């Protein structure tokens, strides 16, 4: 089955945008989460925080505006939005740890049914480092993970227990994939929305833990 990855990513990013309320301070992780900014409704007033010391990320610069001293946490050149502020990394993580960030939207390799998250390394194969993710998952008021529902070889990424080294234990509030929206609750994983027209059973089949019907 040919999967249009670009369309998949767009579906996820558009759905994730709905999690952001006007007035929110939001941190978007590297990669697909950064794309969420492209779909932000103009009706919402949102301040995007960048761990490297910027509150108020603006759009990508024009060639003339490009400034090596102004980047986001993914090292991409950006601009500063109206009303932006610059600060040190210590200040940046004080606002993260101190629960001043309303929503963090991050990528994931595995999420377990109890909200455990793994997204920073595959032992012996890949070491990306955790960057700011370990701080963000404890500090942000709401932690949303966006990722493909299954891995490239079709195995579930939503699992009973993570096999990869954890980023945080019991930290995820909501998972948004190309197929569904799921909430981590005390009772287990609740299937909130189906995004691709599948049945409950079909989503269940692609998900390791038992799902709870809304």
């Amino acid at each position: 089955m040919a999967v249009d990855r670009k369309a998949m990513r767009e579906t996820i990013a558009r759905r994730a945008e709905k999690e952001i309320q006007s007035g929110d301070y939001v941190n978007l992780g590297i990669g697909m989460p950064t794309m969420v900014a492209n779909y932000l409704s103009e009706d919402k007033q949102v301040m995007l925080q960048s761990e490297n010391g910027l509150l108020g990320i603006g759009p990508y610069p024009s060639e003339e505006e490009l400034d090596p001293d102004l980047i986001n946490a993914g090292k991409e050149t950006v601009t500063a939005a109206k009303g932006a502020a610059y600060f040190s990394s210590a200040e940046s993580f004080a606002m993260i740890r101190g629960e001043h960030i309303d929503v963090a939207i991050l990528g994931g390799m595995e999420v377990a049914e109890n909200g455990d998250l793994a997204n920073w390394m595959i032992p012996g194969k890949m070491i990306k480092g955790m960057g700011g993710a370990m701080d963000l998952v404890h500090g942000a008021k709401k932690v949303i993970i966006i990722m493909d529902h299954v891995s490239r070889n079709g195995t579930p990424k939503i699992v009973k227990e993570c096999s990869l080294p954890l980023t945080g234990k019991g930290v995820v509030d909501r998972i948004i994939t190309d197929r569904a929206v799921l909430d981590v609750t005390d009772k287990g994983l609740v299937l909130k929305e189906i995004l691709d027209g599948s049945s409950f059973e079909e989503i269940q089949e692609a998900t390791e833990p038992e799902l709870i019907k809304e």
Partner: protein
Amino acid sequence: MKQIFSSPDEIIEGIEDGATILVGGFGLCGIPENVIQALVRKGTKHLTIVSNNCGVDDWGLGLLLEKKQIDKIYASYVGENKEFERQVINGELEVELVPQGTLAERLRAGGAGIPAFYTPAGVGTKIAEGKEVRKFDGREYVLEQAITGDVSIVRAHTGDTYGNLIYRKTAQNFNPMIAAAGRTTIAEVEHLVEAGTLDPHHIHTPGIYVNRMIEAEQENRVERRTVKEA
């Protein structure tokens, strides 16, 4: 008075093999690129480096990696630096990965005389292994220790001859905490001005933390050039 140098090769005098060096910057943004290159030229070895990243394959701290001058590194992100990842996976380089906020706070604590602090970052993960975990108000926190260094190397946009520093935009990042956490602090500045010409309101790093200074021109390389579609 601050020691003002004109040569990056002279400003690193006294940095011995085996030194612990704290280096400011995030990615290639706000790195003291001329002083790093002086260390590469001198070939100072067995270094312990503390920095958020380790440059890229052919620039910044990546140059020290390439020449195998680093024995151990504390960082939060390896990312797209292939030589860094290769050396870590092959066990050629000892690495302590530190959550970014914890790294910033460990450095801040180091410069502020606080030996350790509790943070939620890393609880229940490999990061907390072997460290004290304590509950406050029902939540678990891990005890993290301060970091100090033999030498700190920072980069600022403007400095004055009394050592006061002003950073520019997101080139500030780790530089202020690192400036305070080294026993000797070297500041590479883009513009050096006479003391008294900067507005005291605007100083980010007060001169007390700075020992040696150099005015130098930077290439200011961009790691990921993204521009809006025309």
